[in-house]
């Protein structure tokens, strides 16, 4: 029944698809970088102070915390999940850390920081168990814990707040301090991005997340330990939100029960703008980081450009839509070109 001659040796030529795909993916992040550069250029030409040291530092500081949460969110979204509780977790951890430090001023702040991270990880573990073992859809579970964790902070805080004056000096200094002009917080954010990026790109555990998000059934059949991975992912997201909370406390000094409210949608927005597919399986943490940076820069640039404050939200919204529309456009293009060359017997 042999109908065709055996394939010619054309192995050498099979790489074309990869380079095109890579080019496109690189283009995705390049697009973000270009948008960033353009925005900064325009803003700077309108007001040269935008590129002053102080101003850059402000942007970096403002990005740092979103960066952490975006890393966690990227991992979660890659598995086709979502973590809407990050804002509440951040609030819980920020308040917990600040309270701890204000009540035990002699405690070294890194210890309190670890407690904050652990608190976040514990919240993440709750999400993870409910999602992985309780089979509750992530959106439902984390929407629930968004309320629960926030309720707990309210409960704990009552109407009280921790003021900067109650916190140890060195902790606050850490919040604004910098190394070679770069804020510590931003360095932490970048470090986390790099570590998570490596993990997602080059380690089996990270690739498993893509596999789960791409097709959970297939992942199960391929022997991926889905439940364990999901648990890990939500713990990681929680821990990063916890770390975010610690940094939040250090940076703002004043912490009340509403810290981080409504942050979740910003983080999701950053991740989406960064090209992470909301339905799992594709995207990189670098893109998400650029998305976070872009959104922060916009937030900082609009007032500088003298654009009415009321327009800011509208512009951010439009930008989110533009970003996903762009992704879609690229995906359609790639899809079309892949389809053309989809012939398997040489």
């Amino acid at each position, binding site marked *: 029944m042999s109908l065709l001659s055996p394939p010619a040796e054309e192995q050498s030529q099979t790489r074309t698809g990869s380079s095109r795909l890579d080019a496109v993916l690189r283009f995705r992040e390049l697009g973000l970088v270009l948008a960033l550069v353009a925005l900064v250029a325009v803003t700077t030409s309108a*007001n040269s*102070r*935008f590129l*002053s*040291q*102080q*101003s850059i530092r*402000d942007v970096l500081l*403002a990005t740092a915390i979103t960066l952490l949460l975006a890393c966690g969110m990227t991992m979660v979204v890659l598995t086709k999940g979502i973590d809407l509780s990050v804002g509440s977790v951040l609030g819980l951890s920020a308040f917990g850390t600040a309270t701890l430090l204000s009540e035990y001023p002699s405690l070294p702040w890194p210890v309190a920081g670890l407690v904050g991270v652990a608190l976040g990880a514990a919240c993440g573990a709750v999400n993870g168990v409910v999602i992985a073992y309780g089979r509750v859809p992530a959106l439902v579970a984390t929407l629930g814990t968004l309320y629960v964790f*926030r309720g707990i902070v*309210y409960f704990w*805080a*009552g*109407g*009280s*707040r921790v*003021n*900067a*004056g109650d916190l140890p000096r060195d902790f606050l200094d850490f*919040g*604004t301090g910098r190394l070679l002009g770069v804020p510590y917080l931003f360095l932490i954010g970048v470090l986390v991005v790099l570590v998570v990026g490596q993990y997602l790109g080059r380690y089996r555990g990270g690739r498993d997340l893509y596999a789960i998000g791409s097709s959970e059934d297939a992942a199960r059949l391929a022997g991926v330990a889905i439940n364990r991975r999901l648990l890990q992912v939500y713990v990681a997201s929680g821990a990063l939100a916890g770390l975010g909370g610690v940094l939040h406390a250090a940076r*703002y*000094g*004043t*912490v*009340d*029960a*509403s*810290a981080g*409210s409504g942050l979740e949608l910003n983080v999701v927005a950053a991740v989406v703008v960064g090209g992470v597919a909301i339905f799992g399986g594709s995207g990189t943490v670098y893109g998400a980081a650029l998305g976070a940076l872009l959104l922060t820069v916009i*937030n*900082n640039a609009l*007032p*500088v450009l*003298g654009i009415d*404050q009321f327009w800011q939200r509208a512009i951010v919204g439009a930008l989110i839509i533009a970003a996903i529309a762009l992704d879609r456009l690229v995906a359609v293009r790639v899809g079309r070109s892949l389809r053309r060359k989809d012939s398997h017997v040489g």
Partner: protein
Amino acid sequence: ACGGTTQDDADDEATAGGDEPAATADAGGEFETGLSIAMLPKSVNNPYFEASSTGAETAVGDLEGEYEYTGPSDTSASSQVSYINTLSQQAADVILLSANDPNALCSSLEQARAAGTSVVTFDSDVDPSCRDAFVSQVDGAEVGRTLIEMMSEQIGGEGQIAILSATANATNQNAWIAVIEDELANNPDYANMELVTTVYGDDEDEKSFQETQGLLQANPELKGIISPTTVGIAAAARYLQGSEYKGQIALTGLGTPNQMREFVKDETVTEFALWDPTALGELAAYAGAAVASGIITGAEGETFTAGELGEYTVGADGVIVLGPPTRFNAGNIDDFDF
């Protein structure tokens, strides 16, 4: 007295009088005991209202009433409506309310009053027709004048200034800002000062922080910031403290001593002002009890005694003013704890 946070409106006044349940002031009358008095703040997780609540609780204790502190966790008018309905359902005698919106609460307040609940607003008013009395922390004009005066002192009466406010709709904020604008336009002492912009931090720490940052970037010539909100001034101070602008930019406004102590000590902030929120709550509770006991009806000229705070007189539109704001600086800040 001046209208404080609400615009004078003769018509409203007239209808208000007409709508009210038949009540006549009994100036010398005794406070009733056993009144159930509830305080409904803008939101419950705010230390400022916590302090007010402490004061109100003391007063209610003195009056041998029942006290409750309840409210939403977000600062929206619609959530407050649910709480007003609940309180009127529970047949509370007095609601002490700090309103998130001057109008949105009116219909439910009217229903509550129709059911026999007395409504006294404090801190942030509603339309005068929907409440019995308003306990203003200070005379609105007085606050505005104090703020601009402090700023002028700190920047030497010359240069650009900006305002960092709370939410865009906050009644009291907008009234004070109007006074500041008016002073700048008409008072020759401030002829060399210019208000460049007003931004809104929504009474959120982060937002206020970022808005401060934006202000300084957008306005390189800026000399000072007035933030007539406790959240805003603390966030702005915190930003200035960690930035190169520390000591370059004057910051004043309304803040609590506990929150600001650190910034005054390290000279980020020279002087700011506030009234005593505890006393405000206490006065509100007495005013509420006075209304419920028929001692006052909210008509101009009526008087009542608010425990140790002394005697107060109801002004036009049912406004009762606590007193002038206190200024806090390195010299006196350690004398206060709230």
